[in-house]
């Protein structure tokens, strides 16, 4: 009986990958454990091993094919050559899991590039870049410009980054400036803060911000407060960066959005970009900033492509961006929350509701002015974030609008947030725990009474 080999998922967030090489050829005998192919994910190149014994009777996806969706059949293992003939004669039945996307072996890039910002100077050139590459480029450019900038963290150097963000930095800048640390977040965060107090400019990568809870004392008590406690004498020019928030199916301890946690701390700046252009421009600004900056990334966004201006592109910290203008309601979001928000905005537009969308980009200091100006026009506001609802970023915006723009509000401010529970593992529950496009649409309909 023939057995189909499906494109495997090789990381929690992998949706597709490149079938880079076939190690076995049609007609080769395979047994369990044999490497049959190599697959390149956004993080690494992995080997695919056979689980069953037989003969490789058909290769369905040629080597070199990009963007092969997870669960797409890639090969067939049969008992003998007859299976090969049988397989070749009849079309492969679509496996249940891949039913909706069965024919779409080669898919389009995950995200369509966003239209360039109107305020870029005329003639600005753009290049489609993933968030991952944009972050790497930002660090590399700043390291070239300033010898005091160095990168430190777990697996940042020889492994090339647990999420490949620091890929190539070791080769260009050497081990003195791209420093692999032991698994010791509290210790290396403190060490990096000490180096910053001495005047260096460390970029500390946390493999994820979940692990930064081990180090939060040094981030808050040592990095954020020293300037004030020293009467302005001693600052701490440091960036703490890494993926933040839910990835996919990694459970409660690895799925948490820390935006609201750090946003409360005077002395810190907190940045959470959505697009690759903002990721690059804000990371460059963060590295140049004389203050400690918490830079919250998102694993799911790493592989998404956006247009990034060519050259020394710096985005000022503390400025929100009106991504889409509209008249009926204001949607405020940041980071991955923008993906729900933009989809909802498009659907609402089709329903005849015109929404203005603001990407906060910086959480602290928050550009509340831009939000207020928009609400003065629309009279309505909905906030969108993956974090929990209690004392959330949305809570802060609602409070500021009530105290500073009360007379302009025609409806209560509504928050769309993650649910008030630890992140469940089960796929259906995880989906329920996160915000979704439907909730955003419902909230906008509620505040616009439509």
């Amino acid at each position, binding site marked *: 009986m023939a057995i189909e080999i499906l494109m495997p998922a090789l990381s929690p967030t992998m949706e597709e990958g490149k079938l880079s090489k076939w190690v076995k050829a049609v007609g080769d005998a395979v047994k369990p454990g044999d490497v049959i192919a190599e697959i390149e994910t956004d993080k690494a190149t992995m080997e695919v091993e056979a689980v069953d014994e037989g003969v490789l009777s058909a290769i369905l996806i040629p080597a070199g094919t990009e963007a092969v969706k997870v669960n797409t059949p890639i090969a067939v293992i049969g008992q003998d050559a007859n299976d090969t003939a049988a397989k070749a004669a009849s079309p492969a039945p679509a496996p249940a899991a891949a039913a909706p996307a069965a024919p779409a072996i080669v898919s389009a890039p995950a995200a369509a590039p966003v239209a360039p910002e109107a305020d870029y100077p005329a003639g600005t050139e753009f290049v489609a870049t993933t968030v991952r590459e944009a972050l790497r480029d930002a660090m590399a450019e700043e390291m070239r410009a300033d010898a005091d900038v160095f990168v430190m963290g777990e697996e940042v150097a020889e492994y090339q980054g647990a999420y490949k963000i620091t890929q190539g930095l070791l080769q260009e800048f050497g081990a003195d400036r791209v420093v692999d*640390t032991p698994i010791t977040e509290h*210790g290396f965060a403190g060490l990096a*803060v000490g*180096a910053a107090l001495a005047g260096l400019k460390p970029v500390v990568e946390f493999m994820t911000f979940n692990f930064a809870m081990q180090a939060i004392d040094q981030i808050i008590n*040592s990095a954020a407060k020293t300037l*004030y406690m*020293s009467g302005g004498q*001693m600052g701490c020019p440091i960036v703490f960066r890494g993926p933040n928030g839910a990835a996919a199916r990694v459970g409660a301890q690895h799925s948490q959005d820390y935006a609201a946690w750090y946003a409360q701390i005077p002395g810190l700046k907190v940045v959470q970009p959505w697009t690759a252009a903002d990721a690059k421009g804000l990371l460059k600004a963060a590295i140049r900033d004389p203050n400690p900056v918490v830079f919250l990334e998102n694993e799911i966004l790493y592989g998404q492509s956006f247009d990034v201006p060519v050259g020394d592109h710096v985005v000022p910290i503390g400025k929100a961006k009106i991504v889409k203008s509209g008249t009926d309601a204001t949607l405020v979001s940041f980071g991955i929350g923008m993906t729900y928000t933009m989809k909802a905005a498009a659907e609402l537009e089709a329903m005849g509701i015109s929404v203005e969308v603001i990407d906060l980009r910086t959480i602290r200091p928050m550009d509340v002015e831009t939000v207020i100006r928009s609400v003065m026009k629309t009279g309505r506001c909905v906030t969108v974030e993956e974090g929990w609802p209690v004392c959330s970023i949305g809570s802060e915006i609602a409070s500021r609008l009530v105290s500073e723009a009360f007379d302009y509000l025609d409806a209560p401010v509504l928050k769309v947030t993650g649910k008030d529970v630890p992140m469940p593992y089960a796929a259906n529950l995880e989906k329920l725990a996160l915000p979704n496009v439907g909730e955003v649409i419902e909230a906008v309909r509620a505040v616009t009474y439509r």
Partner: protein
Amino acid sequence: MAAPKSTRTKTSAETEPTSFTRDEELFAYRNMLLIRRFEEKAGQMYGMGLIGGFCHLYIGQEAVVVGMQMAKRDDDQFITSYRDHGHMLAAGMDADGVMAELTGRRGGYSKGKGGSMHMFSIEKAFYGGHGIVGAQVPLGTGLAFANKYRKDGRVAMAFFGDGAANQGQVYEAFNMAGLWKLPVIYVIENNRYAMGTAVSRASSQTDFSKRGVSFDIPGEQVDGMDVRAVRDASARALEFCRSGQGPYILEMQTYRYRGHSMSDPAKYRSKEEVQKMRNEHDPIEQVRARILTSGMASEDELKQIDAEVRATVQKAADFAQNDPEPDASELWTDVVR
């Protein structure tokens, strides 16, 4: 080849320290006395309600920072915990500015916004003044990282107590310092009590010079009441670090005469124990006796130094009481740059 790890720690407490010259004896005497008198005055002012919050006095431990100061290069960095007044005075920071910070006045080192536990002077290579037990150990290791990064030959000294020595982040720092051969001296000021808990009640290994054994960091136990022994051991440690061999641990065996802070009644030890230390091991009395016995200086000359130190402290106390509080607008400054 490195010696077996078990033999890499040693005790210098029993070897006879190198003698001081007259100038060195008088320098040590004056500087330890300045710390003693300053702290006594701070204690008084705390009692008068002029100093608020926590106030941790260094009385009894003066030989540790003064001995280290005598061995170090001017640009070698100091970083310590909240028991920091002595370190600042030893580093050459101005007594007026330190005392004014204790009273929360605008002329304080942190403009009155830091307080007793949070003062800094980049000029004097003093990096604080940190209020979280043990946090200064990775920070000091980071200063050493910067020294190595810049190849400037500086050595960082991270001071912490026997209590902080049980914090996990200390060993995270030891590991990285050992791994990367960072020029840092870990100065464990073992004053026998972590707040109210005796060393033997909190530590499974009470020989703190051995705390680096797992990381292949050499250590020494030092008589921290004898300023000469401190200087000798510090010189050895500084030479070791500066020559690129990595970190070094000095366990300074010392004693604090006062409570953990001003609000500590110190009921966990007997009055006799404290009195015995004062009578038999006082760091200042040891120097004074040596000076007089050897005839390096007369009783009158020492009295003259006493008077000068008292005048310095009185001037600081006056300044700290008369200097105005920070302007209300200071509330909002220095949060970010």
